[in-house]
């Protein structure tokens, strides 16, 4: 890979790119405190709240598996599929604090056969795809290190 390749998020403002402890960025309503992911700047989703602004807020890095699957066929564009295609897992993870289930790819080194509903997961970063100038990063889920563990 060329040395001029720079690492950039595949989507702006959804997650921090701190390699050691990345976290998702959500939005919070300053009026009713409800939370939203993916983040946005306008309009609280709570029908009983009339706030038209939302503020960015960090979300939990950890959660539990709601469900999971593994893609065995290359998805169509705009997905940039590896050639040859390699199956990869996708998990829906319920964040500990926020009561939000977030869908994400699972780290490349983890297969669906290693996952179970209820398993603890944590957020990591991985490469979604690369082109001549950029390596595009995306958040991924991976089995969590034990709480209080060395990691």
């Amino acid at each position, binding site marked *: 890979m060329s040395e001029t390749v720079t690492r950039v998020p595949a989507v702006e403002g959804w997650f921090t790119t701190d390699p050691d402890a990345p976290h998702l960025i959500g939005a919070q309503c300053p009026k009713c405190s409800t939370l939203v992911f993916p983040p946005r700047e306008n309009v609280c989703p709570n029908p009983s709240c009339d706030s038209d602004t939302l503020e960015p807020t960090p979300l939990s890095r950890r959660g539990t598996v709601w*469900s999971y699957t593994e893609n065995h066929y290359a998805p169509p564009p705009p997905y940039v599929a590896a050639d040859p295609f390699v199956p990869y897992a996708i998990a829906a993870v319920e964040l500990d604090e926020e*009561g939000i289930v977030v*869908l994400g790819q699972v780290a490349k080194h983890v297969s669906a056969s290693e996952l179970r509903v209820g398993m603890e997961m944590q957020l990591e970063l991985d490469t979604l795809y690369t082109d001549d100038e950029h390596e595009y990063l995306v958040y991924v889920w991976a089995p969590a290190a034990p709480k209080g563990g060395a990691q």
Partner: protein
Amino acid sequence: MSRDVAILGAGMHPWGKWGRDFTEYGMVAARAALADAGVAWTDIQYVAGGDTIRNGYPGFVAGSTFAQKLGWTGVRVSSNYAACATGAHALQQARAQILAGFCDVALVIGADTTPKGFFAPVGGGDRKADPDWLRFHLLGATNPVYFALYARRRMDVYGATAEDFAQVKVKNSRHGLHNPYARFRKENTVEDVVNSPVVADPLRLLDICATSDGAAALVVSSMEFAEKLRGSTAGLPKVKAVSTVTPRYPQTVLEMPDFATDSSAVVAPPERTYKDSIAHGAYEEAGLGPDDLDVAEVYDLSTALELDWYENIGLCGEGEAEALLRSGATTIGGRIPVNPSGGLSCFGEAIPAQAIAQVCELTWQVTGRAEGRQVEGARVGITANQGLFGHGSSVIVGI
């Protein structure tokens, strides 16, 4: 005041994969429904079209597309899009026009021509504010990925097995064997299903419905119009309810094409999940409940999703669908046959036509005309479906 609307006629073009102009299929279904009703096209006062978003401008104005194709008569039209619930929304438009007294008799029609392979976002270019574009770009989350999440959850939480899912396919393939409108008319075994290629684990190719071409149409009218036409409304199938509810905040079950659920941290989840609320809305409107049903047509986008529907429409409690399937209750001859038409399993999905096709099947079932797949003595049936962006529908048909 009765809010019944009479179903005078039902018609379909067989489902398949030919890639022809969608209006060709639609015309066959329209002519069949009109003939079944004994109503001339020139007497139709309203056309409610179900839109297709993959067939250019004519697809977005389906009401006028079919009015022009059948020959302009000055008829009033509407064009409706609601993802998989499109056909039921079109039916609801026609029903509302009839019950409001704006018209007496209407044609409801949907037709589609679908591309091969996975459904992909419609339209080109980078659309980073469109969740339907982003879910493909960032996740490769095809529709079967979402179906697989629900299927896997049934396995891990309720102990469902791949064989349970396969048994849904086996049942539906038998049901659809003699349905002249079904695309796939071949009896499948459990071995066929569990040996087919994995698409999105745990779902295999034969667990997942195909995308199809097809068309369906209904002629519906006021009870007064029906009585004048037929001399009596005895034995006429009627639309008893149409539910087109949307989710309530917070929506806590992950749905296509979303990345995430709403948060339940501040606002407590509603009493019913969205999928439960779809049929509930129809039951409330009709003043009926699951015990009143003789037959159901549910949206089996996957085999496992059919099991979810058993619970969502109240045929059994949560986590009990596998036991209900194994008991034979949902097979023709059982207590409450589900998908006697063969379901999406035998049809594949032709989006704007599918919810109308479900109502066509109930129409034939409650009038004893479902040849080769008749549920004996069927008098009341329900349909249920759900699609992208908070769309779902449930229609109750009764004699």
